[in-house]
């Protein structure tokens, strides 16, 4: 999976800035997407393109349980969020609906990757390659459970291994 980075070098990006409460009434995902990150970055829509990744600090997606947050980002074309850590409901929502991949990174990757860098993520080897800078970092592997839900294509397609 290859794409370019939009970097927000801060902690605690909450679901209210990802998609403000007033838009939780919007059921059309394309329209919802037009308001993604509205509370945080007015230039987001001029930057974002299909296949991009967001990189951020600790506790990404904290706050509300609104699944609208990963939905809005995924409908802008965002395929993965790379963050030092995630709030748990956002993390689960991202994989349950197969909206995007929440990828936990370490400080090296966080410091090494810059805005605009081209990145290749391989979840089979847990490696993140920075094509722009010719660097490689490790991602934190998904837990068994999360890996299986991702591999199944979401919560509703997941079936436990049969005996």
């Amino acid at each position: 999976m290859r794409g370019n980075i939009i970097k927000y070098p801060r902690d605690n990006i909450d679901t209210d800035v990802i998609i403000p409460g007033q838009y939780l009434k919007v059921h059309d995902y394309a329209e919802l997407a037009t308001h993604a990150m509205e509370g945080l970055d007015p230039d987001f829509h001029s930057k974002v393109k299909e296949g991009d990744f967001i990189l951020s600090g600790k506790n990404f997606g904290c706050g509300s349980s609104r699944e609208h947050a990963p939905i809005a980002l995924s409908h802008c074309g965002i395929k993965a969020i790379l963050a030092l850590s995630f709030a748990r409901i956002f993390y689960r929502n991202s994989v349950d609906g197969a909206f995007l991949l929440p990828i936990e990174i370490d400080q090296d990757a966080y410091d090494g990757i810059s805005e605009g860098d081209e990145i290749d993520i391989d979840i089979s080897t847990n490696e993140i390659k920075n094509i722009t800078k010719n660097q490689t970092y490790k991602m934190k592997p998904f837990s068994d459970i999360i890996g299986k839900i991702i591999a199944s294509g979401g919560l509703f397609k997941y079936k436990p291994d049969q005996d």
Partner: protein
Amino acid sequence: MGKTLFEKIWESHIVVEKQNEPDLIYIDRHLVHEVTSPQAFDGLRMNNRKVRRPDLTIATMDHNVPTSDRSLPMLDETSAIQIKTLEKNCKDFGITLFDINSPNQGIVHVIGPQLGITLPGSTIVCGDSHTSTHGAFGALALGIGTSEVEHVLASQTLWLEKPKTFEIRVEGKRKNPHAVTAKDIILSIIKNIGTAGGTGTVIEYRGEGISDLSMDQRMTICNMSIEGGARAGLIAPDEKTFDYLRNRKYTPKNYESLVDSWRDDLKTDSDATFDKQFILDINDISPQVSWGTNPGMTCDVDEPIPSPDEFSNGDPNQKKGAEKALEYMDLKSGTMIEDIKIDRVFIGSCTNARLEDLIEASKVIQGQKVASNVSAMVVPGSQMVKKQAEEMGLDKIFTDANFEWREAGCSMCLGMNPDILSPGERCASTSNRNFEGRQGNGGRTHLVSPVMAAAAAIYGHFVDVRKLDLN
């Protein structure tokens, strides 16, 4: 080795358990509201599925309902559609709904306990992060997203990773319990552990400082567990819990025999261990006021706003966050909290809009008037709270002081209905989140207790309520 309360509840709800797989957990109660459920019901229809246990599923409308006169038509068309959609979904799938005209309508986390739907030892889910509130009754209560809402509607179960355990011991006694409240305890905890301090854990709140609290106060504590990043918060049930739930609308018929078993079973064994621990001494804690844009950015009412350096302890992202927060809040480090002037006061939300919150706030304002530069409102947590408060004459105390007295709902906590801040307005709010734009685009939120909010309304700026006579 002994088990924690959380482990006991978890183990008694496992439907399927396999190595290297998530546990399939049975859900005893599912609470539904208008905002996070429409896509879930659509999903059921698309796949030709029914609601597996409509009898264990209860719905209300709270997030976007107007809190003004409900005999008038709703002006916001998209909210009206969302409300109509919930009515249709509940009718189609046979789910009990407390609609906008029901005497039982209210914020889902306020009505659950009031109706006796919330029971000790049970598992409860809702498509809302503040579901953690129900943990005050010794229930394992988890906030979930819409995909999981659909999964529970269809199967009454959820695939879950077992969280870790986190003991928070609250030791000591508050010197002035009318001035230093449960809200100040939980804000102090979050200030100390941070907004991600509880990530991946279920917190059990223990100790004298917790058992001393009333049920309304315990709900305030558990409600904000999510602001510390936790999956849920729990308090072991005791006689206060059992008394609260006796003779409610949905209290089970065999309640007394259930209480007998809960009394024996629903506690952490003395030799159980937790994965993590934090201890808060409340003997000397002060009323808390948030100054920044997350609930961890909080200080004592008699302190100055910290500098980004003091706040961050050398963490560059924390420092940057504090700088950005001060800029957004239009505040300077070193400013004393009591010197901050406010424009609006909101007493409401699933954190602090229960009867006791309103009683305590009313004591501060009795016989006084809201400052001329402030507009203030009270939004009771449920129509039942509103009715009880009116029977006690609290509505008169508030309206005589020039507070608005509204109908029940989430209201200005999250800015989905017309109750929002204008850009730049500064609000003393009893809600749970001070995120940028949470109460309206450009709005500035300070999280405080109901008595602190009420006092700020009267004085037009924050005041240390320990200086007031609150008895």
